[in-house]
């Protein structure tokens, strides 16, 4: 419970984190988590645009069955760079490094993350990793796919595998630093009165995500280290000629990369919980179970990596065990979806842009999750493994899920981050365009996959053309959909109307401080006396509403 900026000084611009300094140094050497979040925002947006450009070229090539736009080597590099950039340089850092970085300390009433300099270091490490990968992209590119399967990556590929692998290796350290910071911050920096079960679900989701990052990333590091050693020094590790096992690499790779999917989706689920609560003005239905289900998903994520290898020659029995375990992921996921919907029941639902994204998320995540069941089902996976069915499935999770959550969160907290309001009409319009474009792009790919079109195909049989053209048309709409927010959000930073502390009438400590927040987030350390999402009592005790009333007088 703190008072925001005192009213009399309203004439003079209040000092906040954005106007605390203007020089290049004040940004590049900042240890303020909010500024670092913006550094990340700029970098990942750059990578998103780049990864998107590769996707556009891929979809363009696939309009016709013949490989007539580019050579197959070029095409292979396009899809590989698309995957690498989107996974390692956009999706994994997206919500944690931008929204998590900005909001986590504020949500728990702290002045900063526990280790601000590590936080800045993580951005530099990210940038360094990015430069390596961009270097690889410009000096020949890499054609291994984002999965680096051996022995193709270690022996046969002509691409710049080592530079790319070093880039991915380095960027792993950046996630580790962020995850470590979050874990310590959540454990040790909570404001007085903020017990674990009063934490916003966004914080719970980031806690689970950080655990996955800490446990998974080092194994990927080990796997990439081994591939790098094998390729650089010509020593055999996965080389079958020596008795080495290329499938061992797949085990190590998926031990990280399956949980990595949860690194991408869990933070997004955290965002959705915040949005649903705010825009239906209700406490999240079954708060505890949503919090635990995040941890359950994080834990289960480490037990199911073998479901990527049902046709890799692993034993039939291993396949059956991994299939069995994979189905358990469905339970916590289903709980989340049903609890979110139950939150809407007898709520007060508004249709602001973030809420449109949240509803879109639930729908698309449902489809993504249900199609995941097809892939866990052994007999079906044999047929659809490595086809467009898989491509469609993980885009529904990663783009329909993670990306929708990211955009919803960016819109929701934009007034807090920038101190400005974005144009609501354009917001709703672009959310709709993205939803339509997304479905048109990826739904046909389910059908393509079951019909048997393998992924990573540069040329394909003619009978698949109609569905591919639909998908490419959808991608065009989707691309436009993404450009609109990019334009109006940048525009609003200068021309948008100023935002007050709590434009949505939302609950949570971040809404009790000014927009944009002061340098140390709060004038005074807040004391928390109530549970999260305590919307019902707003009419009596909400300070920000009181403030709004005062400032309007």
């Amino acid at each position: 419970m703190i008072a925001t900026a005192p009213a009399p000084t309203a004439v003079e611009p209040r000092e906040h984190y954005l106007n605390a300094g203007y020089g290049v140094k004040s940004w590049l050497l900042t240890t303020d988590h909010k500024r670092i979040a913006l550094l990340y925002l700029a970098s990942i947006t750059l990578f998103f645009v780049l990864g998107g450009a590769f996707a556009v070229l891929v979809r363009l090539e696939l309009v016709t069955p013949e490989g007539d736009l580019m050579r197959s080597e070029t095409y292979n590099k396009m899809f590989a760079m698309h995957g690498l950039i989107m996974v390692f340089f956009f999706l994994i850092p997206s919500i944690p490094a931008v929204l998590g970085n900005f909001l986590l300390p504020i949500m728990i009433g702290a002045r900063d993350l526990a280790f601000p300099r590590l936080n800045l270091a993580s951005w530099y490490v990210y940038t360094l990793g990015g430069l390596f990968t961009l270097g690889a992209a410009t000096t020949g590119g890499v054609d291994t796919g984002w999965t680096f399967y051996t022995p193709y990556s270690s022996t046969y590929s002509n691409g710049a595998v080592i530079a790319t692998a070093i880039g991915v290796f380095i960027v792993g350290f950046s996630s580790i630093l962020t995850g470590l910071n979050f874990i310590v911050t959540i454990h040790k920096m909570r404001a007085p009165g903020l017990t674990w079960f009063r934490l916003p679900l966004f914080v719970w989701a980031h806690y689970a995500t950080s655990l996955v990052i800490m446990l998974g990333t080092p194994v990927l590091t080990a796997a990439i280290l081994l591939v790098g050693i094998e390729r650089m020094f010509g020593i055999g590790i996965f080389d079958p000629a020596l008795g080495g096992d290329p499938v061992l690499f797949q085990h190590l790779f998926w031990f990280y990369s399956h949980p990595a999917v949860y690194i991408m989706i869990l933070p997004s689920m955290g965002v959705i919980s915040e949005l649903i609560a705010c825009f239906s003005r209700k406490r999240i239905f079954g708060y505890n179970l949503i919090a635990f289900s995040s941890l359950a998903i994080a834990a289960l994520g480490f037990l199911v990596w073998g479901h990527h290898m049902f046709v890799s020659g692993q034993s039939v029995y291993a396949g059956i065990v991994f299939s069995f375990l994979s189905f358990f992921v469905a339970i916590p996921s289903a709980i989340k979806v049903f609890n979110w919907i139950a939150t809407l029941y007898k709520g007060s639902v508004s249709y602001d842009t973030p809420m449109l994204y949240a509803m879109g998320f639930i729908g698309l995540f449902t489809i993504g999750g249900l199609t995941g069941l097809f892939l866990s089902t052994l007999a079906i996976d044999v047929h659809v493994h490595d086809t467009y069915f898989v491509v469609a499935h993980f885009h529904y999770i990663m783009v329909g899920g993670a990306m929708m959550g990211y955009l919803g969160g960016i819109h929701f907290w934009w007034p807090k981050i920038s101190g400005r309001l974005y144009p609501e009409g354009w917001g709703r319009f672009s959310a709709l365009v993205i939803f339509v474009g997304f479905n048109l792009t990826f739904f046909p790919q389910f059908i393509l996959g079951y019909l048997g079109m393998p992924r990573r195909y540069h040329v394909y049989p003619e009978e698949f053309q109609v569905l591919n053209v639909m998908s490419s048309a959808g991608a065009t709409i989707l691309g436009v959909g993404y450009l609109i927010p990019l334009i109006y959000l940048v525009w609003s930073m200068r021309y948008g109307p100023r935002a007050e502390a709590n434009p949505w009438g939302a609950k949570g400590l971040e809404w009790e401080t000014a927009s944009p927040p002061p340098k140390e987030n709060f004038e005074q350390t807040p004391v928390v006396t109530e549970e999260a999402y305590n919307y019902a009592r707003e009419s009596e005790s909400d300070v920000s509403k009181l403030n709004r009333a005062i400032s309007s007088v």
Partner: protein
Amino acid sequence: MGEGFPLFPEQASTIAEGVDQLYAFLVAVSVFFSVLIFALIFYFAIRYRRRSDLDMPRPIHGSTALEIFWSAVPFVIVMVMFGWGASLYFKNSRPPEGAMDMHVVGKQWMWKIQHPEGRREINELHVPLGRPVRLIMTSEDVIHSFYVPAFRIKMDVLPGRYTTAWFEATKTGKFHLFCAEYCGNEHSRMGGAIHVMEPHAYDLWLSGVEAGESMAEIGERLFHDLRCDTCHRPDGGGRGPTLDDVFGRSVALSGGETVIADEAYLRESILRPRAKRVAGFQPVMPTFQGQVSEEQVMEIIAYIKSLASEGERRLAR
């Protein structure tokens, strides 16, 4: 393939229908839940839309009973999926007895296939209708994956080891063969066709070319040319164990363990003879790694298999 807008690929093998039925079940479940969830979102969003900025709904903390309900229902449904999918997979993973063996070698970017009768094909495979066909596969370079959508089968093809898949075609015609595991530049062109023919047409096709040697015969010739027969003598008096009737049997090793003499073991013993040495014999056999191609290894194995008429049946058990 259906007219206009097909949603299913052709069903051209004995397992295709079972897979499609399971798929249809999953589609039905998915459609049900998707429609339910979309409908609930729309209904609640409209029914409980914000009518005034002063709306402040009463909080609902949750309901343990409801939460248990919507954890238990999905659990039961996914366990049905698991059981159905796993049993079908288990069934589909075992070739029936008496399947004819086709030998497949993948390399960037082609499929080299050899019939037991010795006939070789590249990127094409002719098979008779209604006879189970087992594929014994390996790769000369990177990982490939043998994928025939119309048969609903797929299996990775790995360097340095054998993987197997099988099918029994139920429809004559020409079907796509794809490589499903990304393998480099021409990955998307590493495909071809499976031609399913009436049995008599297949026999005709086989005898169409001048009667060549069968795989086992080629293997026998290699066996002599490489001087394998100086040690592996039929009477068992050589420096190596006799290979008569050894396929499919369990073999005692020098380390005290036993191993079933299947294709993978025979391959390993040719390329790395001392990895698993038969008990009672000296480690004197040289390695043939680099001296014989993957296809020649398969031919030698075919010869050794031909020395054990009961071998296949033993192995199936």
